[in-house]
């Protein structure tokens, strides 16, 4: 499983996103441009220039027509995937830390940073997935996070809920249409920030990553914590694999001393856990700094990680990965096969 190294960024990676088909990868970093890559060979499709600050976040619509990005320059921007053309810029009073399209790409949420005189918010924009359409300036909804700022957020199935992860370690469920808060539940240790929130394919559950060194699998409908994965390092990102019941966690303590052995030898690891049994099953090392973002290929063929070291590593799973099964999983597959399912 030799990874492909993508070196198109000069600064720390902030987020990686696959498109729905898993053939393209979009990456953002603190170096002010977005990169698009072909996942199978790591060739660069293009870059998207225009932001005037670190870029914290990127997402691609389900038809791979447009991407949205959020930046420290206090804007959300919309871009045409194919040409790199900037289609729209929305201005905010503070940095935008997270953007996410809903399941049909007609709405985009943005998480804005808290700063003196400004509370953190979650804003919603109406989107036309059409590169020739005029995009609306108007924010259709603003959720103000007056308790603890949101650090990450996303859309559930049917765009029914907006789920947010907060700085204080709690998770909130808001109505996707009205923005009313239904629940706020402390799922991680108090004041241990939630650093990532990613969905399964039908958006009925999601995974969080936290500085408290754990990751949780949570039901979108009632915020029930169904699984917990314990690591030995603060976590920055977590993703759910398709085809196999695994999750991948990324993190690591920033090396204060650059001569630290782990940094010199590329020992920062992506950790694989069994999604259902919560057991760690393997690690993949390689980065020279903490993993800031991990993403699973939606077709199940591989995953990518982005590090504080400025590299993206794209991995394609080998046969051993697909063959690996617990005894009870094999038993279940055989039973389903026998029933013709």
């Amino acid at each position: 499983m030799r990874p492909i190294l993508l070196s198109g960024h000069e600064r720390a990676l902030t987020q990686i996103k696959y498109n729905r088909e898993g053939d393209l990868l979009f990456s953002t970093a603190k170096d002010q441009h977005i990169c698009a890559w072909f996942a199978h060979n790591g060739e660069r499709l293009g870059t998207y220039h225009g932001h005037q600050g670190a870029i914290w976040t990127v997402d691609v619509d389900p038809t791979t027509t447009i991407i949205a990005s959020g930046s420290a320059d206090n804007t959300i921007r919309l871009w045409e995937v194919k040409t790199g053309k900037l289609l729209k810029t929305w201005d905010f009073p503070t940095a935008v830390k997270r953007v996410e399209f809903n399941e049909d790409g007609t709405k985009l949420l943005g998480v804005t940073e808290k700063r003196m005189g400004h509370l953190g918010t979650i804003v919603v924009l109406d989107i036309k997935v059409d590169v020739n359409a005029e995009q609306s300036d108007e924010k259709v909804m603003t959720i103000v996070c007056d308790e603890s700022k949101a650090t990450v957020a996303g859309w559930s199935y049917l765009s029914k809920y907006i789920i947010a992860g907060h700085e204080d370690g709690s998770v909130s469920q808001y109505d996707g249409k009205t923005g009313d808060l239904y629940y706020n539940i402390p799922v991680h240790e108090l004041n241990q920030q939630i650093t990532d929130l990613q969905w399964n394919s039908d958006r009925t559950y999601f995974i969080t990553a936290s500085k408290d060194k754990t990751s949780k699998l949570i039901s979108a409908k009632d915020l029930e914590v169904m699984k917990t994965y314990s690591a030995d390092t603060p976590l920055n990102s977590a993703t759910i694999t398709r085809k196999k019941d695994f999750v991948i966690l990324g993190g690591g303590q920033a090396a204060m001393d650059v001569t630290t052995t782990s940094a010199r030898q590329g020992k920062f690891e992506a950790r694989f856990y069994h999604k259902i049994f919560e057991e760690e099953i393997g690690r993949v090392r390689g980065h020279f700094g903490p993993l800031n973002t991990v993403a699973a290929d939606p077709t199940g063929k591989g995953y990518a990680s982005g590090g504080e070291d400025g590299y993206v590593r794209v991995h394609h799973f080998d046969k051993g990965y697909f063959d690996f099964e617990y005894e009870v999983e094999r038993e279940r597959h055989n039973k389903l096969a026998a029933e013709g399912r």
Partner: protein
Amino acid sequence: EDAERISSADVAVVEARRHLLNEWYSWHEQMQEELADERAALGLPADPIAELLEAKTAEVAPGGEEQVIE
């Protein structure tokens, strides 16, 4: 005796995993059914993305045919 103890521990572990696996899949199947019902009740297509992709394909190649330029 030791072998017996180990094997009974193994059986317990396997039994626990089997339980977890069944519990997980029954939860997710139930969730998927609920979701399908909600989609149907709202008059939404079963797969939210399939239609979008079809529309995009139709736009790129009108009439669903490749345009051949001679």
